[in-house]
Every structure is written in structure tokens, then in C-alpha cells.
């Protein structure tokens, strides 16, 4: 046994029981909010966006929850634990650089355009913005593809951590999690889901802040952390690690290309993610004070907790446990955050952490699943068969929500298909690169046309899928270089094709850009 480091925590019955109770409480409150949300909708439109009266606190908490996935709450700590300071750029130090501009650029415009055009989903908003049913279908299919790929990996971290801290098989816990998510989504629709997400966002923000600050105080300070890291490996103190491969995901830690790509990824992802923009569709029109409250809530949840999770938490775990976690198959560094919480705060803090991780996981998944379900019901079925009744559409929604929740669960339980695993790595980058231009830029650039948007979607989709193959299977290109190829191509196609094709009608431009809200 290595006496220099803390021993790996062993699972106890108390640990397993308290974690189980914690998750039960979290899910119980979420389901209660879903039941309360049932009173808030009567038609299918209200099921999709409520009454567009969500205030800044609920919107801010729900936006943070939809943006922060299980990866942000668990995987980011593992990255910094593995490679040291050089991992913090990609792990999430730039999170605020994405989500705060997302509010500036997209919140008011998404709401105002959606109200003017009577849109209840992001593809419907795009279809009407670009005056094209064809584009609405293409945007919907693209979102469905990428959100589906991206959602498959969402439950992995929560399942692994659950097993590591309780010893109970993750299947039952995850099944219960997705089943309860299905109940509150089906009952509550947009409003109930948003309320549950808001509760989960607030919870993970508070837990993340407690864990990060507690760990920093307990660590003995910055100099102490650095001294201990230096004793283990001086490379852990480097801000860039040229010793790591420049192909694959490690390019983010090993080169300036990676360092420059990280803020771009966070910026475009936060603004382009449809499940983030979805939070603004049902938001009320904010006055100045409410807008500040919205920003402050998002800053408080996404700022301190995430910045500590993706920097000091990983470094402190490395000083406490050394490289021992790499030997624990198959989770390895993913155990950094739960073990840190146990090391500094015992079972109470570890229970809070596990609850926070489940909150982060379920909220992001719920946000994505709600969008995917609406992609089919509203943007494909209603678009091409407008006579479909609300009752039929709501039944379809119940089925699709179950399907899109069940498949990530199934592939967390059973290994996902190889091809899906390859594409998963770049799905978030693809979503960000495509929809940053197709949605956010179209709110400001009057000359944006349906063909500019169409070719951006086509190029972004193909580049993401091909990029996944050459970055993760062939391993001949770095993931950061791929981001520039993806983003550069989308930028050129969106602007050049828009400039050479027929502009949108004058009537539409006047309605969107001249008329008051």
C-alpha cells in the first residue's frame, strides 16, 4: 500500500443507503414538480412551450441545468486529474464564455422571433424565419440525429459513479431515473420539465460550489497543491503538454491549436445547442432587472462550481490519491470527483455529489429528449399532416419521450454500437458549429437565406461524421484542428451561399427586424 496517498475508499452499507435515499429525494421532488406542471397546459402548443411566462429564476436555473451535463460535473474533474493544469482549458474553464454570451445573443431574440412567428420549437422557428418547410424538416432531422448521438453518452458517468459508491448495479437506478424523468416530462410538458430542470440546476450549482470551495480550503492553498503536484510529476503544472499526442482529443492539451479551439467550442456550443435555446422559447419578456437576475443566476451556477470542478477539484484529487485511480477499471479518472467529495466531506458530501451528478445528467437528457420528441411531432408530423389532432400528437409525444429516454439507458447498460461511439465525440461540436450560424446569426443578419442555412446544415453534418471517423478511428487528425475545419466551413458556406441566393421577402424582414415586440 502506498502511504504517500489516501487509500481508495471502500464501499460501506451506510454509503450505499444514504446515496440511495439522496437519489430518491431528488427524483421525488422532480416528479412532484412534474405533477404541478400538469395544471399549466391544456393544448399541444402549451405542452411544448407553456404560456411563455417563465421568469428569470426558473429560466436561469433550467438553462444552466440543460447546459451542464454529467460530463461537466464529473468528466471535467477526471481530465484535470489525469493531465494537470493543461486539461482545464478543455474541461470547462471557458464555460462562462459560452453560456453568458448565449443569454446576450439568443435569449431575447429567440423569444421575440418565436412570438412574432408563432413558433413552438427551434426548427419551426427556423422554418418560418427562412420561409421554408423543406428547411424546417432538414433542421429537425439534423437536430434529431446529433441530439440522439449526443444523448447516448449522457447516463454513462452517472451509472459508473453510482456503482462505484454504492456497489449496486447501475441498471436499476438508471432505469428508475429515466422512468421518473419520463413521468415528469409526460405530465408536466415544457413547464413541468423546466421546473424540474430548474430545481436540478439550482441543486447542482449549490452542491458544486460547496464541493469546490470546501476542497480548496481543505487542500492547504495554491502553493501546497503545486508543491504536491511537482513531487508527483512536474508536467502536471504545465499549462500546455507538448509531450501528449497532437492527434485525437489530446490535441486540446498538447498544442496552441487546442488551446485556441477550446473557447471557440464553448462559445458556439452554448449558443448553438437547441436544448439551450429551447429554454428561451417559453420565457417571459424580461425587463432590465429580470434580465440581470437571469444573468446572475446562470453566472452563479455555471461560474464558480464549474470552474472549480474543472480545475482545482481535479488537481486536489491528484494530490490526495496520486495516480491510483488509473488502475480502477473501467472508470479510472471518472472517479476523481466522487472520491474527492468522500475524502474531504465523508458520506454526507459524497451523497450530495452523487445527487448533483444525477441532477446534471437527468436535466441535460430531459432538455434534449423534449426537443427530440418535438422534432418529430411538431416539425415532421404536424408540418406535413396539419390535420393531426392535439390528442394524437400528445400520445405520440408520450411514446417518443419514452423511446428517446430508453435508448441512452439501453446503451449505457449494453455497450453502444461502435459507429455510434465514434460519432459521439464530435456530436456536441457539430451541433454548436451548425446552429450557431443557422439560428443565432439569423437573428441578426437580415440577408441570411434558406440556402445558406441548408448548405451549412449539410456541410456541418457530413464534416462532423467524417471528422469523428478520422479523429477517433483513423487517429490522423486532432480534435481541435477538426473544430476549425468544421466551424470555418460552416462560416464560409452560411455567408457566401446566403449572399449569392435570393434574399428573404421584404415582408418577413420588416416583421422580424422593424416591428416592435
Amino acid at each position, binding site marked *: 500500500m502506498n502511504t504517500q496517498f489516501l487509500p481508495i475508499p471502500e464501499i460501506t452499507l451506510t454509503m450505499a443507503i444514504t446515496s440511495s435515499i439522496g437519489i430518491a429525494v431528488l427524483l421525488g421532488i422532480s416528479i412532484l414538480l412534474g405533477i404541478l406542471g400538469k395544471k399549466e397546459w391544456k393544448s399541444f402548443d402549451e405542452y411544448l412551450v407553456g404560456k411563455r411566462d417563465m421568469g428569470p429564476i426558473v429560466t436561469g436555473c433550467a438553462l444552466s441545468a440543460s447546459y451542464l451535463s454529467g460530463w461537466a460535473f464529473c468528466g471535467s474533474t477526471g481530465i484535470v486529474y489525469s493531465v494537470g493544469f493543461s486539461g482545464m482549458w478543455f474541461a470547462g474553464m471557458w464555460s462562462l464564455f459560452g453560456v453568458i454570451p448565449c443569454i*446576450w445573443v439568443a435569449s431575447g431574440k429567440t423569444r421575440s422571433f418565436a412570438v412574432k412567428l408563432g413558433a413552438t420549437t427551434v426548427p419551426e422557428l427556423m422554418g418560418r424565419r427562412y420561409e421554408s418547410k423543406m428547411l424546417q424538416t432538414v433542421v429537425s432531422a439534423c437536430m434529431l440525429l446529433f441530439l440522439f448521438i449526443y444523448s447516448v453518452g449522457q447516463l454513462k458517468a452517472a451509472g459508473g459513479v453510482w456503482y462505484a459508491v454504492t456497489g449496486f448495479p447501475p441498471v436499476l437506478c438508471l432505469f428508475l431515473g429515466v422512468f421518473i424523468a419520463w413521468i415528469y416530462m409526460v405530465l408536466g410538458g415544457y413547464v413541468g420539465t423546466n421546473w424540474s430542470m430548474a430545481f436540478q440546476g439550482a441543486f447542482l450549482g449549490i452542491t458544486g460550489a460547496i464541493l469546490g470551495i470546501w476542497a480548496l480550503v481543505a487542500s492547504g492553498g495554491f502553493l501546497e497543491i503545486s*508543491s504536491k503536484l511537482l513531487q508527483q510529476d512536474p508536467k502536471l503544472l504545465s499549462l500546455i503538454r507538448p509531450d501528449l499526442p497532437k492527434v485525437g482529443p489530446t490535441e486540446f492539451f498538447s498544442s496552441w491549436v487546442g488551446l485556441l479551439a477550446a473557447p471557440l467550442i464553448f462559445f458556439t456550443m452554448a449558443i448553438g445547442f437547441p436544448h439551450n435555446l429551447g429554454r428561451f422559447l417559453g420565457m417571459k419578456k424580461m425587463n*432590465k432587472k429580470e434580465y440581470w437576475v437571469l444573468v446572475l443566476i446562470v453566472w452563479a451556477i455555471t461560474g464558480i462550481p464549474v*470552474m472549480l470542478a474543472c480545475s482545482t477539484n481535479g488537481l486536489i484529487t491528484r494530490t490526495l490519491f496520486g495516480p491510483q485511480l488509473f488502475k480502477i477499471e473501467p472508470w479510472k479518472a471518472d472517479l476523481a470527483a466522487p472520491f474527492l467529495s468522500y475524502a474531504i466531506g465523508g458520506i454526507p458530501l459524497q451523497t450530495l455529489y452523487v445527487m448533483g451528478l444525477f441532477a446534471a445528467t437527468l436535466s441535460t437528457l430531459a432538455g434534449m429528449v423534449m426537443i427530440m420528441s418535438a422534432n418529430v411531432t411538431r416539425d415532421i408530423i404536424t408540418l406535413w399532416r396539419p390535420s393531426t389532432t392535439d390528442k394524437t400528437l400528445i400520445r405520440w409525444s408520450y411514446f417518443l419521450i419514452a423511446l428517446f429516454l430508453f435508448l441512452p439507458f439501453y446503451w449505457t447498460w449494453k455497450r453502444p454500437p461502435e459507429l455510434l461511439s465514434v460519432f459521439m465525440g464530435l456530436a456536441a461540436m457539430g451541433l454548436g458549429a451548425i446552429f450557431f450560424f443557422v439560428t443565432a446569426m439569423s437573428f441578426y443578419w437580415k440577408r441570411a437565406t434558406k440556402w445558406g442555412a441548408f448548405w451549412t446544415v449539410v456541410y456541418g453534418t457530413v464534416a462532423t461524421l467524417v471528422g469523428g471517423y478520422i479523429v477517433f478511428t483513423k487517429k490522423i487528425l486532432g480534435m481541435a484542428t477538426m473544430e476549425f475545419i468544421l466551424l470555418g466551413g460552416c462560416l464560409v458556406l452560411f455567408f457566401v451561399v446566403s449572399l449569392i441566393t435570393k434574399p428573404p421577402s421584404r415582408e418577413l424582414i420588416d416583421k422580424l427586424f422593424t416591428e416592435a415586440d
Partner: protein
Amino acid sequence: MQADTATLMYPWYFWWAMFIVLFLMTFIGTWLVTRGWKE
């Protein structure tokens, strides 16, 4: 292994800079966005 304080603190200066810059970005940016708004 021994190192001087400056070497040990070097990465933390960047860490602090990130916190400060992103804090200022949030508040100055929001002030710029909302300064023309009427209540």
C-alpha cells in the same frame, strides 16, 4: 524536488486571470447589453 514560489505559482496566475476576466466579461457585457433599456 524543490522549486521556487514563482515557478509553483505560475499556473495559478493564469487561473486567477481566467476567473477575473470571465467575471468582468459577465458584468461589463451585461451592462453594455442593457444600458439602453428602459424600465
